[in-house]
C-alpha cells in the first residue's frame, strides 16, 4: 500500500508517536523508580544464592490487622499465618496463571515469592495477565508482577527472575524454595519443572488453561503421582495448542491460577492440599468443576519410581520435540519456489493479476481482518477433515474466477475493439488467448494462480502442500479432467502478520 501524506494521515501518525513517547516516558520513570528501590525490584538474570528465610517468631500489630480476616479462621489461625510467612513459593511463568497466583500469595502474606519468566509484556497478554499494565508493554514480566505485588504488600520478599528456566539453572533455583507453581505455557518446561521438583523433593502445584477449560493438579506431594507417572510420554507436538493459537478466555486462567495460590497456601499453612492424586477439570462453557481421582505414584516411573533412570535434568526440548516457549514456531514445509513474500503479493495486487486468494483461517478470524482482495475462505480444519471436499471447493473457486475474468475481459475487448488495436493483436497472436503484457488490465489465466494465506504463514504452507498432493493423486487416478490446466499454488510467507509488518502498518495484528 502506498504511503500517502495527507493531513489526516500525518495527524494520525503524530498522535500515535505522541502516545508512544508517553509510554516510553512511563517506562523510564518506572525503571528509574525501581533502581532507587532496594534490590527488590531488580530482576535476576541467573540463579543466585538467597539468604535463608528466617523463622517468624510472632506477628506484628500491622500483620495482625492486615491478615485479621484469615487469622480468625480456626483452620488457619496465627499458626497458619506464621507458617505461611516462613514459606517461600516459586512461580514459574508470569502469565495468565502466574498473575492471579502471585497476587493472592502476596496478599495472604507468603514469606518469599520468586517469579520466573524470560518474556516481556505484550499488548495481547493484558486481557488475562492482569498484573501487567498498558504502560508496561515491553517490560520484563517477572519485574512487572513483582512491582504490582509490592504495591499490594511490601512485607513479602520478592525475587523476580528474568530468565528462561533450563536444565542448567532449574535445580539451583528450585532448591531454594519450599513450593513450586507450574504456571508455564509449554510442554518442555512442564517436564523440566516436574523432574526438577522430584529431584529437589518439592511439591508442584500445576495449572493449565486453554480456550474455555482449565486443569489443576498437585504433583509429587504426599505419595501422589508426578507428571511423568501420569504422562510418561510427551504428546505429539502437533496435538499441542497454545493460547495464542487456540485462544483463551481471561477468567479461565484467572480461576485456575487463583486455585494454585489456594493450594499453595493450604500446603504452606499445614492444612494440606486437596489435589494430591486428584485433578480438577474446569469447563467454563458448561460451568462445571469436576474433580477426578488419579493413579498413585508409579513404582516404575523413570523419575520418581523405585529405580529411577533420570537422576539429573535432561534435554527437555529434545524429549518433547517442541520449544520451551509458546512463541510461534516458523514452519518450513514448502519449497521456496511455491512461496511469495508480502511485497510480491502487494505487487500482484497493484498489477491486478487475477488469482484466487485462498484464506485458510478459521471462520471466526475472518471477522477480525482480511487482505484487500476478495477471498475464498476454507478453514484449515476442512483440509484435515475432508481434503477431497476442500479441493473441490478450491477448483470451483478457480472456475468461478475464470468466468468472472472472462466476463470482464469481454467487456474490455468490446471497449478496445472500437479502436481496433486489440483485434490486430489478437490476429497476430493467432489464438484467442492474450499474452500477459504490462499494459493489460486483465490477464487471462493460462496457469490459474491460487494464493494461500493464513495468520502467520504456517497453515498456508501445509494447505498448498496438501492441495498439490491431492491434485497429483486425483490426476494419477484419472479422477481429474486431463485438460484441467496446471494450477500454480503459492503461499504468502509470514501471512497476515508479515503484511502488517512490511506492507500496511495500519493492518491489525492478533
Amino acid at each position, binding site marked *: 500500500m502506498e504511503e500517502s501524506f495527507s493531513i489526516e494521515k500525518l495527524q494520525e501518525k503524530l498522535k500515535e508517536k505522541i502516545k508512544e513517547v508517553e509510554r516510553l516516558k512511563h517506562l523510564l520513570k518506572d525503571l528509574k523508580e525501581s533502581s532507587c528501590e532496594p534490590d527488590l525490584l531488580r530482576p535476576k538474570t541467573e540463579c543466585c544464592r538467597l539468604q535463608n528465610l528466617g523463622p517468624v517468631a510472632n506477628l506484628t500489630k500491622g500483620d495482625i490487622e492486615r491478615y485479621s480476616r484469615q487469622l480468625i479462621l480456626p483452620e488457619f489461625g496465627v499458626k497458619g499465618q506464621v507458617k505461611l510467612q516462613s514459606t517461600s513459593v516459586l512461580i514459574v511463568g508470569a502469565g495468565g496463571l502466574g498473575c492471579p497466583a502471585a497476587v493472592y500469595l502476596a496478599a495472604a502474606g507468603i514469606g518469599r515469592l520468586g517469579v520466573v519468566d524470560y518474556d516481556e509484556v505484550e499488548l495481547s497478554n493484558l486481557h488475562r495477565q492482569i498484573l501487567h499494565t498498558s504502560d508496561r508493554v515491553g517490560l520484563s514480566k517477572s519485574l512487572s508482577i513483582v512491582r504490582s505485588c509490592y504495591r499490594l504488600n511490601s512485607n513479602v520478599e520478592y525475587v523476580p527472575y528474568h530468565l528462561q528456566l533450563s536444565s542448567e539453572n532449574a535445580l539451583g533455583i528450585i532448591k531454594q524454595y519450599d513450593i513450586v507453581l507450574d504456571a508455564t505455557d509449554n510442554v518442555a518446561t512442564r517436564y523440566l519443572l516436574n523432574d526438577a521438583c522430584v529431584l529437589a523433593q518439592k511439591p508442584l502445584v500445576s495449572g493449565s488453561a486453554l480456550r474455555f477449560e482449565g486443569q489443576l493438579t498437585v504433583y509429587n506431594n504426599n505419595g501422589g503421582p508426578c507428571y511423568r507417572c501420569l504422562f510418561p510420554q510427551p504428546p505429539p507436538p502437533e496435538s499441542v495448542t497454545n493460547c495464542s493459537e487456540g485462544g483463551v478466555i481471561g477468567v479461565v486462567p484467572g480461576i485456575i491460577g487463583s486455585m494454585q495460590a489456594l493450594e499453595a497456601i493450604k500446603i504452606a499453612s499445614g492444612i494440606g492440599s486437596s489435589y494430591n492424586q486428584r485433578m480438577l477439570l474446569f469447563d467454563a462453557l458448561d460451568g462445571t468443576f*469436576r474433580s477426578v*481421582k488419579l493413579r498413585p505414584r508409579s513404582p516404575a516411573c523413570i523419575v520418581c519410581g523405585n529405580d529411577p533412570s533420570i537422576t539429573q535434568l535432561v534435554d527437555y526440548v529434545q524429549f518433547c520435540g517442541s520449544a520451551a516457549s509458546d512463541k510461534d514456531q516458523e514452519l518450513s514445509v514448502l519449497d521456496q519456489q511455491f512461496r511469495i513474500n508480502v511485497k510480491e503479493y502487494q505487487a500482484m495486487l497493484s498489477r491486478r493479476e487475477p488469482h484466487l486468494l485462498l484464506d485458510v483461517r478459521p471462520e471466526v478470524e475472518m471477522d477480525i481482518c482480511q487482505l484487500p482482495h476478495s477471498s475464498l475462505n476454507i478453514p484449515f480444519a476442512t483440509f484435515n477433515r475432508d481434503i477431497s471436499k476442500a479441493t473441490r471447493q478450491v477448483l470451483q473457486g478457480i472456475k468461478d474466477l475464470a468466468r468472472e475474468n472472462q466476463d470482464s475481459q469481454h467487456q474490455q475487448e468490446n471497449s478496445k475493439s472500437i479502436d481496433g488495436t486489440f483485434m490486430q493483436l489478437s490476429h497476430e497472436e493467432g489464438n484467442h488467448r492474450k499474452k500477459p503484457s504490462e499494459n493489460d488490465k486483465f490477464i487471462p489465466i493460462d496457469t490459474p494462480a491460487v494464493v494461500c494465506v493464513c495468520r502467520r504463514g504456517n497453515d498456508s504452507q501445509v494447505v498448498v502442500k496438501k492441495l498439490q498432493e491431492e491434485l497429483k493423486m486425483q490426476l494419477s487416478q484419472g479422477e481429474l479432467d486431463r485438460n484441467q490446466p496446471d494450477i500454480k499454488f503459492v503461499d504468502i510467507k509470514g501471512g497476515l502478520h508479515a503484511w502488517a509488518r512490511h506492507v500496511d502498518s495500519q493492518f491489525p495484528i492478533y
Partner: protein
Amino acid sequence: MDSNKFTSAGAAHQNTTRQSNVDLKLKLNKFKMLPVTVEFSGGAELLCGNVKKHDVDLPGQQNKWQIRNLLVWIKDNLIQERPELFLLGDTVRPGILVLINDADWELMGELDYELQEKDRIVFISTLHGG
C-alpha cells in the same frame, strides 16, 4: 427395539438360523446394546466435530465390551479427523487421560476394563497453556 441397530454378528445369526420370533428375541436379548456415555474434553472434542458429550448405544456382541474395543469403535464412529491424534497403536496417544466414571483408567484396568451399562468414559487432552 430397532433391529437395524443390532450388530452384524446378530444379523448374521438371524439370517443363518432362521429361528422363530420367540427364539430370535431371546438371542437378540443376549446381545443387547450397551448404553454408555463417551465424553471428550481439553480439545479432544475437536476431533469429533466439536461435540463433547456422546450418548451412544454400543452394538450388542457376544463378548463383553472392553475399553480396547471401545477405542476402535470410537475411532470408526465418532472421530471425524486426524485419528492419529486420538489413537496410537491400540491405545490412546500420549497426552490423553482416560477416565472411567471419574477415575483414572489405570485404577480400573485400562484397556481390559469391561464396560458396564451407563458407564461414563471421558477422554481428556491435557492442556499446556497458561
